[in-house]
């Protein structure tokens, strides 16, 4: 039985929850996997950390929350500070260079990627920051295939924005492929 647990954490408006849904949906629709996605809400719909949990598996998933992620994605400093300690030993951490400054920590494989800056630079629209992240995640984990993610995007994204999204995905994938584990 294979099982992979992820936490996507960032701030409202960064699209972390959408990214989580796209990943899980891709796994279900195009790769015959099972998936559960959930999210936690703050006191109000606004402000605070935005967090989404995803579990991918080839077996039934009962408990839907992630307590120790295999993969942790942090798109803000606050998210990083809150969650970087709960990552599973040997797990994967992806953090954005623009938003997150790393503290010393050894137990995880850490990738500190310039996702945001690259998107802003190459595409000029931070709205696809989360899609870029998905590209990198794909490259680093291979949890789903890149073309499956593309298919999901094709279904969800209005055609006039599709190109931009695909570009962001590719950019992310490249960043992921070229990435090197951060030396703490």
């Amino acid at each position: 039985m294979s099982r992979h647990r992820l936490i996507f954490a960032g701030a409202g408006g960064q699209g972390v929850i959408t990214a989580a849904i796209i990943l899980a949906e891709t796994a279900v629709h195009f790769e015959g996997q099972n998936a559960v996605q959930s999210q936690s809400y703050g006191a109000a719909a606004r402000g605070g950390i935005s967090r989404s949990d995803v579990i991918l598996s080839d077996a039934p998933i009962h408990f839907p929350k992630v307590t120790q992620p295999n993969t942790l994605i942090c798109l803000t400093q606050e998210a990083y500070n809150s969650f970087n300690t709960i990552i599973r030993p040997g797990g994967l951490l992806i953090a954005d260079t623009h938003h997150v400054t790393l503290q010393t920590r050894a137990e995880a494989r850490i990738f500190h990627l310039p996702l945001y800056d690259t998107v802003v630079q190459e595409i000029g629209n931070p709205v696809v920051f989360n899609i870029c992240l998905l590209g990198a995640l794909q490259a680093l984990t291979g949890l789903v295939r890149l073309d499956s993610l593309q298919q999901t995007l094709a279904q969800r994204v209005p055609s006039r924005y599709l190109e931009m999204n695909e570009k962001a995905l590719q950019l992310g994938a490249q960043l992921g492929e070229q990435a090197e584990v951060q030396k703490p």
Partner: protein
Amino acid sequence: MAIDQYLRKRFFPHIWCAGCGHGIVLNNMLRAVDQLQINQNEMVMVSGIGCSSRISGYVDFHSLHTLHGRALAFATGVKMSQPNLTVICPMGDGDALAIGGNHFIHACRRNMDLTAIVMNNRIYGMTGGQFSPLSGTGITATTSPQKTIDREFDIISLSLASGATFVARTTAYHYKEITNYIKEALQHPGFSVVEILSQCPTHFGRRNKQGDATEMLQRYRQNTTSIGSEAKQKNPELIERGIFRQETAPEYCAEYAELINRAQQS
């Protein structure tokens, strides 16, 4: 800042979104309190549930954050039992006029000395952008993907018809009016309603292509005018701002005090 003493600063930054009009209301409401030099120990703020209602957590008054729609009902008990207190009730448009509509009209009718501030963003902000009885027709919201067909209330007409004795309207853009009208309302010996159009860029603005907070504020500047202005005559679509009624009529607590006299004499 002059109004710092009225803030519970440890809860800032507040939970409202960037550019939310409710913050502008808070900002300029406190200036009214400041200018009137009301003793904070004699100020009670009673609110319901909604983004707007969260305001009561930020002010250093006695604060009562109640149930959706019921602020005026709670406030009626506070004021009736301790008429020397100044009671102010900030409310969302849904809070005041969807679920809370009945308490609203009855508070107007009773004319107890309470001040209701309706922070009207034409949407249910807190629950994620469903339309409200103030949205009006043709509006996109999470519960009206095909645009609303529900007609809107006119808060001013409704307040006037139900008997409120002080009735005013302004917008988040017109910050001086906010302070002035709330000042007048707080001093008015009877039930007062101040409607303040307040932008919700997150839900109303975004779904209805109204741009960011600044654009929404500019819209208030353009779409409104003073009561009875020339502009209004030329363009009847403009929304009027100003004081629509300011009348004295028997105040409920005062009348009740007399009733007690009568009862004790007989």
